[in-house]
């Protein structure tokens, strides 16, 4: 197998007494879309900042493109495309100028930048906005521009820190479509997210992070198979009834999670479980049967939900 683009062992980041990243190991291979899934504060962004050489490593070892972030920062950064959590575009400049300036930072010749701007405007579906000032763009457009900007140096590795946080559903789908295209074209992507659906749609392989540690690793499918059941039955009880409900359900499912607003029952056979619920004459308000998702994996591994 080819050399990993990023290889980390015991990677640690401390801020004074706070341990943001607590000795994690991972490898990112060429051509894959690799995800870091976890709630806010799990250490995802700190990990990204160490890969982009912006944040010094506290302990452990990491190589990016076989180079040392401590000494080869500039060379590493010249081969990276970075999409930060917050759009940090120059709002006073036009769409085109933002791309141009970034190309110059990467020391690309002007004719090359001009050609790439054409390609990237088409990719980001921003051709008609080329001369518009960034401050006039919608949230989705700004996000696409940040991604286009990150591609100006034709990076070997694209790092996307929460690419769709804060976007409306339609804008998210447009963005996913673009990222999916990048993936099809063979780009290596690193994506952090606290959205299950995003991780399931885009990532070939992912790690689940919680409190600075990696708690599980695999493809979305593997994770669901290993840490959850095939199906989930969700029950909602009338106010005040859920305690009694939880007691009555005891022993029915493989595993049960009582959340604030509903009870999750994990099973490989939902139909059979529902029959049994009816047999026990359990009274509930609403019922929903669905397939297990990464959200359930996370809940199982940490006892908490991803977005509270």
């Amino acid at each position, binding site marked *: 197998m080819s050399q990993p683009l990023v290889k980390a062992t015991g990677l640690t980041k401390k*801020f004074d007494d706070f341990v943001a990243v607590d000795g994690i190991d991972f490898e990112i291979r060429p051509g894959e879309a690799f995800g870091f899934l976890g709630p806010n504060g799990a250490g995802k962004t700190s990990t990204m900042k160490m890969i*982009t050489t*912006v*944040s*010094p490593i506290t302990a452990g070892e990491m190589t990016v493109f076989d180079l040392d972030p401590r000494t080869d*920062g*500039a*060379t590493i*950064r*010249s081969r*990276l495309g*970075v999409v*930060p959590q*917050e759009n*940090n*575009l*120059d*709002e*006073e*400049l*036009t769409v085109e*100028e933002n791309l*141009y*300036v*970034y190309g*110059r*930072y*990467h*020391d690309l010749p002007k004719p090359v930048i001009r050609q790439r701007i054409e390609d990237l405007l088409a990719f980001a579906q921003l051709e008609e906005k080329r001369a518009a*000032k960034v401050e006039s763009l919608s949230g989705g457009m700004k996000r696409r521009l940040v991604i286009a*900007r990150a591609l100006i*140096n034709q990076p070997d590795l694209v790092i996307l820190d929460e690419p769709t946080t804060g976007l409306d559903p339609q804008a998210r789908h447009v963005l996913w479509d673009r990222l999916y295209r990048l993936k099809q074209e063979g780009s290596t992507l690193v994506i952090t997210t606290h959205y299950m659906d995003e991780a399931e749609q885009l990532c070939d392989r992912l790690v689940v992070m919680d409190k600075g540690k990696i708690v599980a690793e695999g493809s979305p499918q593997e994770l669901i198979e290993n840490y959850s059941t095939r199906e989930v039955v969700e029950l909602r009880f009338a106010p005040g009834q859920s305690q009694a409900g939880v007691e009555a359900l005891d022993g029915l499912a493989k595993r049960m999670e009582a959340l604030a607003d509903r009870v999750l029952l994990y099973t490989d056979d939902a139909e059979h479980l529902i029959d049994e619920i009816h047999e026990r004459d359990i009274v509930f308000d609403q019922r929903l049967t669905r397939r297990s998702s990464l959200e359930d994996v996370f809940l199982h591994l940490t006892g908490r939900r991803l977005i509270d």
Partner: protein
Amino acid sequence: MAAITNALRQVEADYIGYRRTWRGRIISTFLNPVLFLAGMGFALGSMVDRGAGDAQLPIPFITFVATGLLAANAMQVGFGEGAWPIMAGIKWRKTFDAVLVTPLTVADLINGLLLWGAIHLAFALGVFALIAVLFGAIEPLPALLALFPAVLGGLAFQAVATAITSRLEDETGLTTMMRFGIVPMFLFSGTFFPISQLPDWLEPVAIATPLFHAVDLVRKLALPGVGEGVVTTIPMWVHVAYLVVMTAAGWLLAIRFLERRLKK
């Protein structure tokens, strides 16, 4: 050599930004100084030149004010360049984060910002000096000569402002610096009257300020042979040394503080 190329990339970025924003800055950069020159130089000057008490200047008041304003304008432009755009880059727009994931380092960024600052100062002060020449306040050649110390003074303010802003949490600190640093210096460091007019105990305070050194140096170069009463007897190299040390200290501290702020 990457360091030079990278700094020039930042200069180019600043220039592109300037093309988009110079109109919004026209009032503070060009119009205000000219209004001061007209108001103070012509209007107040006509009274001063007629003679009031024993504090008479050996030169027209407008010449005195024009040379003072050249340095004071440099201070304001330099401070402005080292304050708000830095806060924007760090905090408001976070554009510095975007720069620092390209091959540029914090040092490249600061070098570029200061280099651009010098170019911008030369341009802004050049326009002011030209207007002062057209007003008949300064002779063309001395005006050109005085541009150098004025740019140096402005750069010193920019470098120090950049360093301080790199440590500020929010913009209240910038307003404080403006109120308690820039404005008092503007009024009391020799722009509008010789510091010998200050109460005896205040004179050393004025001499300690950077603006005084820029003002005095500008006058010594722009008004050769002008005597005491207009300028002090402090040798020119002291002024130069003061401003060079201030620029260098601001520059190095800016790199250090910004590194600490953005590369955590």
